[in-house]
């Protein structure tokens, strides 16, 4: 149980850490239906999301903000001659990799100079690089989006399933690889308006930025800054067309969940120990009663009270020790099975089987003590007369 719990929380924590504990992420969100009604006009342009002004406001008014990474995300087909890949084209800035802990595996990310010049350069996600260029290195080659060609300067490291899920969005989106181009290039090529074909009818959306990552200089300030960001965004957006995600907050929440989970698991374990202990006590009491005569014989042959106590305590500990060993075997085997069958991460900490074994032996001592003392306190004459 603990192994599964550790595994689950480890996975969640890795996921959140990949977002950066010092980061605050703001995302553009299409307003929900009821909020949209006020602005709805068929065939008009839906204007929502984070504006460039939001960034400058944050930078200007909130202390503690070090860097800001804006990003635009466009869903496009990316071509290498005849091979096509469905991808998210992300227009962003050159320091995106360091900020988001997403490293470059091969080549380089685009530079500030590329950005200033609005160059047609790109860094490919590892999966799409593999699919577009199965036989050769993509570095220096070109990929095509619509009529535009982009020179590949780098390939990103693979994003683990966990890391990809940085938004908590649907799994369909997780599996889509990202291709990175300079934000300036994206602006030039795509302008401000994005078209989306939705349920057969064209719908125009105007979104300046899809995603902004705000980095805070000190982890202890993250929560304060996030409140300021939320406040600022609320004042400048009539509709709730954005979402603020604080990885640190999520981390705290997960830790809290983990604590609760551990408490629940611990309570279950404690109750099972109690039940097991009472079971051992019952068995030992029956054992002592059944062997009353033997106790009398041993006492007549020179056994002291503590000899009898020790004999029955050892038996109780052996009993609970065998139970403990079986439990440890199962406790090691089940997490393996869970990992294999359910594709779930499980972690067996070194101390947990050791502790389990020690505790079960201890349970033997604690719950075996009463029956053992009862055996020792028997009157030898009575015990010999038994049966």
């Amino acid at each position, binding site marked *: 149980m603990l192994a599964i719990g550790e595994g689950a929380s480890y996975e969640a924590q890795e996921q959140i850490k990949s977002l950066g504990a010092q980061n605050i992420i703001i995302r553009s969100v299409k307003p929900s239906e009821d909020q949209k009604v006020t602005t709805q006009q068929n065939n008009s342009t839906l204007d929502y999301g984070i504006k460039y002004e939001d960034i400058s406001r944050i930078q200007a008014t909130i202390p503690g903000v070090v860097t800001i990474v804006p990003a635009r995300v466009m869903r496009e087909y990316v071509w290498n001659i005849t091979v096509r890949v469905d991808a998210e084209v992300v227009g962003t800035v050159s320091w995106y990799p360091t900020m988001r802990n997403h490293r470059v595996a091969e080549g380089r990310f685009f530079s500030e100079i590329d950005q200033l010049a609005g160059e047609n350069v790109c860094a490919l996600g590892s999966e799409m690089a593999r699919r577009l260029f199965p036989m050769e290195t993509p570095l220096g080659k070109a990929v095509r989006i619509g009529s535009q060609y982009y020179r590949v300067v780098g390939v990103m490291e693979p994003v683990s399933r966990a890391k990809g899920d940085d938004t908590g969005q649907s799994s369909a989106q997780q599996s889509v690889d990202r291709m990175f181009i300079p934000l300036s290039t994206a602006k030039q090529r795509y302008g401000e308006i994005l078209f989306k074909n939705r349920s057969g009818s064209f719908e125009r959306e105007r979104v300046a930025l899809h995603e902004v990552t705000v980095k805070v200089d000190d982890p202890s300030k993250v929560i304060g800054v996030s409140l300021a960001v939320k406040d600022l965004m609320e004042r400048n957006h009539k509709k709730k067309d954005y979402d603020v995600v604080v990885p640190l907050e999520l981390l705290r929440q997960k830790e809290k969940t983990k604590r609760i989970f551990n408490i629940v698991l611990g309570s279950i374990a404690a109750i099972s120990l109690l039940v097991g202990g009472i079971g051992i006590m019952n068995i030992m009491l029956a054992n002592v009663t059944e062997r009353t005569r033997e106790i009398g014989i041993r006492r007549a042959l*020179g056994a002291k*009270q503590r000899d009898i106590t020790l004999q029955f305590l050892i038996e109780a500990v052996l009993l609970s020790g065998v139970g403990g060993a079986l439990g440890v075997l199962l406790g090691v085997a089940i997490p393996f099975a869970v990992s294999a069958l359910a594709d779930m991460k499980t972690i067996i900490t070194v101390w947990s089987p050791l502790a389990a074994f020690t505790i079960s032996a201890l349970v033997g001592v604690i719950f075996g003590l009463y029956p053992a003392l009862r055996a020792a306190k028997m009157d030898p004459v009575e015990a*010999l007369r038994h049966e």
Partner: protein
Amino acid sequence: MNPLQPIVSLQSVRRSYSLGDVVVEALRGLTLDIAAGEYIAIMGPSGCGKSTLLNLLGCLDRPTSGRYLLGGTDISSLDDDSLSEIRGRRLGFIFQSYNLIQQLNVLENIEVPLFYQGRSDKEAREIAIGLAKRVGLEKRMDHKPFELSGGQQQRVAIARALASDPLVLLADEATGNLDSGSGREILGLFDELNAAGKTLIMVTHDSSVGERSHRIVRLRDGQLESDNRR
């Protein structure tokens, strides 16, 4: 120890059991001396206090009043651990129903008193093998009690009683559960042991068994009725 001093000395020993309001007087002021090397039978009708007396002599119980000196030591003043010690080192018990430990084999049963004296395994094993031979069980040493006849089991019990080379052997109806043939064998063994110098105290209500001893003590209502040496 002064050889002229009796090995067992009971002085006005009383033992009473209180059952709620009623007090049962099992022994009412018994005085009895037993010298080293004696072979004595305690006889009397049922309920006269034979078992109570044997429990006292065996240090399994303590007198309500009076004194009991075993080899010069006053038993009434000792604590539970010391009594265990004395039972293990100075006394050997032989019971009517053998009282072997069922899960142990012949040798292990003989070793039990030695185990509680903290003797080494090797020493205990040597003593046990010697005694198994002495009682004629050298071919049965690794048998469990349920694989033995009653007579054989009682011989194991005698070997066990001898393991710590005690001052006194106490036998409670030792032949009571045996057929006459096995009973004779056991009594023959008693004769041998007494001839070799062991002090033997046995409880019996069978006069033919009592006849084998050299002194018959009769009890009635917790008091001495007669004490005949032959």
